[in-house]
């Protein structure tokens, strides 16, 4: 007689299970057949495709690197032209960062998180699939610009004024701005999915204390995306406005400043590095305990270190700007933060070493990649500390020393762990594990090749070779160092080839017959990984439940734990509380569909057609994308079917609203994104004021106070209408509809009044940095107002069909949150653009 993991020691369900229970579960989660797999939303299917695509981009960007290394093998080489080389390094950086690294870690999250948390799927399967399809289509088109010579050539950092209309005419820069802009949107969609997934879909009992480190890292990664990506999205919006309409955000002669871009870009760009590194560290924290056969030492300290890294990484961005002439004391602040951030990484490194000491490390291919990671990443961290020293950075900045440093950090800190992860987790998702022999060969090649390629670059940089040069003269001592680096680069390529061969020979993705737990790991992703995850959802009472309860895999498989079948006949997931993981709600999940796939294609088409200035078709695609999103959302709020029994005497509601509902959380995260975008804007506004206060108008030139009072009154009226509508919801449909319509109209009217007042005062966006900023604020307000309008129209459509009432009100709850935010942002905007110039004028 075995004892269940539950607090009572009793299994939630007795055996044997009803004979048709499993069949019904399988039917509910069945995959679409044949080519219709494109409509699938299961996290495992999307996860496979996501990882495969990301790895594909890794190989492509790697080939670009080989071309560059070939060009640099000897001095004064003419293998590649200046123009092509400039496109190559721009695309190498951009593709590696935006199309490989971030998607790859998010993909690992999509594939692993539900399994690891004991969830059936992620909470918004179609959002995850949408994010993937947007990324795939957009990424492929973006990459293909290289073949027609239309690729951007201003570097992955896109510094204006080089990237401005004046110095980069043509569509290359626009492809970067719009192409990458919406891939960032895909990343944010993924982040929302991951945050809500980690916080709300953990198996019962998996409190924050028992949550695997990988889930922690994904949670922190997603949180960082929410706050970091808006900064670069704002920057791309501003630069595109400048390129398209001449609004001078970055043009110094008209009160803009090129450094504003650098602040915004690096406020995203530095956290980005940790966004890539943290999940990789999370993977290592999963692999090391398994391979050493013991629990992770310093689990709590690692959680502290991860959170601290997440925060500190936002305080380092100026260390990319140490040479821009910023006053010394300010540099000191960021030098200090840059050093502080290395402490948490040190903690993790020594915690892993301690874990290895506590157990016996099996030297598998995965372990080798982890050991490679530990050494290469540590060296990258140490050169990072060197670069954090301002005077040293003055010399090393923008030289090959930096190239060496960040490849040690990124390849060491992300690619090695990812390869370790491939070799480690393959048996959980493939019929056969990957070949240990080929894996060890690949490791030997990549570890040697990497160091041969990149270690000499430290020296190349210090003896004077700057980055981003397509050629160099002989006789400066750089010749043989570059040749050695090129040889190393081809060894790395050989290693990747070996891994690809291994994939072809051994990787057989499956949802039914995986090789299974061949490493004897202790976490839940090593249970079965069917389309529905595991047969039943276990109760989790430790960090390594499979170690604590050797029979758990069998018990789960037999359906002795929670929710062994389907209550409603459809896909279901247990939603649990955020901290203690107590079951709260049985959420019904959607099955396969086409609306989200089409929405993704039309979204991609909208942005890409805008790039080539096909405005009419672009707008049509944009409208279709919105229509598809509405179609996809239409049946996402099914009505209550009473309480559902998940076993162990727990009956969960099948309808909830307010903060218990995951959609409420998703909306809050989305609002955090909007808020971060707006905060970046406020920073930009104040920053330009400190740089070019002369373009700020005197109080007399500002619109009269009566305008502002009118605009503010309209915003307040909008809020009042919302609050009244909320009270009347479910009582009078016509009154509710009228109130919502009035409220949305007032929101729009407030924006129009504000813009009109500025226009009539003579302010023009192209005239000055100040003017550009004021109208950019209106653009942001128009964005959130448009979102409110679409959501309100959606709510009214559902009201008309009787799908929205006092109980069934999640759609209204979401609208309400966004609406409150829009009113708040509008009021703040008035205060900023009308009040601030008066206060300082």
């Amino acid at each position, binding site marked *: 007689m075995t004892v269940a993991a539950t607090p009572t020691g009793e299994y939630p369900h007795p055996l044997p299970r009803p004979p048709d229970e499993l069949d019904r579960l399988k039917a509910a989660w069945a995959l679409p057949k044949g080519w219709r797999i494109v409509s699938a939303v299961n996290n495992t299917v999307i996860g496979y495709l996501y990882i495969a695509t990301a790895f594909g981009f890794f190989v492509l960007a790697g080939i670009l690197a080989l071309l560059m290394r070939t060009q640099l093998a000897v001095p004064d080489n003419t293998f590649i032209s200046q123009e092509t080389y400039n496109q190559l390094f721009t695309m190498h950086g951009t593709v590696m960062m935006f199309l490989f690294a971030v998607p790859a870690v998010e993909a690992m999250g999509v594939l692993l998180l539900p399994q690891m948390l004991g969830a059936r799927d992620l909470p918004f399967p179609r959002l995850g699939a949408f994010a993937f399809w947007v990324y795939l289509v957009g990424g492929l088109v973006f990459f293909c610009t290289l073949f027609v010579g239309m690729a951007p050539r201003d570097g992955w950092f896109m510094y204006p004024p080089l990237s401005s209309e004046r110095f980069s005419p043509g569509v290359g820069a626009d492809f970067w701005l719009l192409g990458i802009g919406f891939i960032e949107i895909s990343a944010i969609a993924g982040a929302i999915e991951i945050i809500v997934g980690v916080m709300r879909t953990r198996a019962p009992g998996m409190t924050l204390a028992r949550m695997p480190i990988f889930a922690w890292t994904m949670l922190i990664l997603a949180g960082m995306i929410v706050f970091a990506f808006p900064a670069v999205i704002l920057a791309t919006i501003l630069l595109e406005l400048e390129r398209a309409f001449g609004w001078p955000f970055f043009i110094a002669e008209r009160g803009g400043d090129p450094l504003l871009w650098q602040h915004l870009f690096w406020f995203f760009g530095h956290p980005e590095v940790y966004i890539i590194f943290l999940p990789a560290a999370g993977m290592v924290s999963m692999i090391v305990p398994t391979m050493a056969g013991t629990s992770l030492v310093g689990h709590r300290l690692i959680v502290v270190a991860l959170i601290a890294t997440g925060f500190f990484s936002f305080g380092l961005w100026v260390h990319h700007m140490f040479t821009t002439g910023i006053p010394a004391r300010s540099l000191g602040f960021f030098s200090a933060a840059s050093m502080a951030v290395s402490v948490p990484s040190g903690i993790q490194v020594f915690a892993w070493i301690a874990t290895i000491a506590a157990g016996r490390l099996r030297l598998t291919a995965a372990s080798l990649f982890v050991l490679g990671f530990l050494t290469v990443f540590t060296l990258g961290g140490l050169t990072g500390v060197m670069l954090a020293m301002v005077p*040293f950075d003055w010399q090393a900045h923008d030289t090959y020393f930096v190239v060496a440093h960040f490849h040690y950090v990124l390849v060491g800190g992300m690619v090695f762990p990812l390869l370790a992860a491939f070799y480690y987790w393959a048996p959980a998702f493939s019929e056969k594990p990957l070949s240990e022999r080929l894996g060890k060969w690949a490791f030997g090649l990549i570890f040697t090749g990497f160091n041969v390629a990149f270690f000499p670059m430290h020296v190349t940089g210090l003896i004077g070779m700057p980055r981003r040069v397509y050629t160099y003269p002989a006789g400066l001592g750089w010749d043989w160092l570059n040749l050695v680096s090129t040889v190393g680069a081809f060894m790395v390529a050989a290693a990747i080839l070996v891994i690809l061969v291994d994939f072809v020979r051994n990787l057989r993705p499956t949802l039914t017959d995986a090789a299974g737990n061949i490493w004897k790991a202790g976490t839940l992703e090593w249970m079965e990984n069917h389309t529905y995850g595991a047969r039943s959802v276990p109760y989790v009472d430790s960090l390594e439940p499979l170690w604590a309860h050797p029979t758990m895999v069998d018990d789960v498989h037999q359906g002795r734990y929670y929710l062994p079948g389907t209550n409603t006949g459809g896909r279901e997931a247990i939603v649990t509380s955020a901290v203690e993981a107590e079951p709260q709600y049985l959420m019904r999940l959607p099955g396969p569909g086409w609306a989200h796939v089409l929405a993704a294609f039309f979204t991609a088409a909208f942005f890409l057609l805008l790039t080539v200035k096909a405005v009419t078709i672009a707008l049509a695609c944009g409208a279709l994308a919105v229509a598809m999103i509405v179609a996809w959302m239409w049946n996402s709020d099914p009505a209550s079917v009473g309480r559902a029994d998940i076993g162990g005497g727990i009956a969960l509601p099948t309808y909830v609203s307010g903060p218990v509902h995951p959609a409420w959380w998703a909306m809050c995260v989305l609002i955090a994104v909007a808020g971060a975008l707006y905060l970046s804007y406020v920073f930009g506004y104040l920053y330009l004021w400190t740089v070019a206060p002369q373009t700020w108008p005197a109080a007399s030139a500002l619109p009269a106070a009566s305008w502002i009072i009118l605009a503010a009154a309209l915003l307040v009226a909008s809020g009042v209408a919302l609050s009244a509508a909320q009270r009347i919801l479910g009582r009078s449909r016509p009154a509710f509809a009228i109130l919502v319509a009035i409220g949305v109209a007032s929101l729009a009217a407030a924006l129009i009044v504000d813009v009109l007042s500025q226009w009539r005062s003579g302010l023009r966006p192209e005239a000055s940095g100040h003017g550009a900023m004021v109208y950019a604020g209106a653009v942001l307000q128009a964005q959130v107002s448009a979102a409110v309008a679409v959501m309100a129209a959606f709510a009214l459509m559902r009201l008309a069909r009787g799908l929205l009432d006092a109980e069934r009100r999640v759609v209204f709850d979401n609208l309400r949150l966004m609406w409150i935010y829009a009113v708040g942002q509008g009021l703040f905007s008035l205060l900023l653009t009308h009040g601030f110039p008066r206060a300082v004028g």
Partner: protein
Amino acid sequence: MSPQSVLSPMGPDAARIAETAAILAVGAAIVMTIVVAVLWLAMRGSPAVRRRLQADRFVAIAGVAFPVVTLTALLAYGLWTMQAVISPADASSAMRIEVVGEQWWWRVTYRDARGRSVASANEIRIPVGRDVLFELSSADVIHSFWVPNLGGKVDMIPGRTTTLRFRSDRPGAYRGQCAEYCGGAHALMALEIVTLPEEEFDAWLAAEAMGAALPATEVERKGGQLFLAGGCGACHAIRGTPATSSVGPDLTHVGGRRFIAAATLPTTRENFARFIVDGQHLKPGNGMPPFRIFAPEEVDAIAAYLASLK
């Protein structure tokens, strides 16, 4: 000695940074060795050693206490060095030189003893043993001024004037290069700083302030005429001749510089000729169109004239 190297410092500021680099490199090597050794012990050490390594105390000491202490010390050292490098020994005696970054060359303006400005390009001569303050700005995109043997780099940003101060202690020619990607021919935007003993420098600057040398030979004279007739003066200035435009580099003493095309080609008659005809191939995208209107002997004459402008 390497002519473009952080590791061959030729002035006190570069020396201080090189010293910092050495300390950091040695420190990093020591820490790296310790980490690898501990990792090895964790895998292969005796049970007693491994028991110590798995304690929470080990993580607390090696992962928290040790980094916090060393990094705090490093931070203080770094801040002190930064201040030492920035703060002038004697601000009043510093010589000022204005450098403007342009795609893809350097516009240089000296102030001579009487406050007159002297225009030059792509090669900067400075006196040995005296602080030089560079006032850096940009005419188009962001560039970065960097001569590693003499000091760190500072960006040249449109709309701002940044400053960099350093001193050279030994006469020599030091190569510098634009360190911020500035589009197209960024790789070919280099410069040279030639440091001279004080008296030599003063004499040179006085000569530099003068107009161009008069052609000495018939070929040079013909070259000078062709230079003007061919419209070269629409972009270039040669002081003392009707060519006064400041669009491109000032050529008054171009023959006296060691390199042309922003330290891309050695200054020879042949290279002048090549650049006039084939500049877009030698330095793609540069602002000068190829001049194929000249016959080969005419190109040679212009080249001879330019080479004579010492």
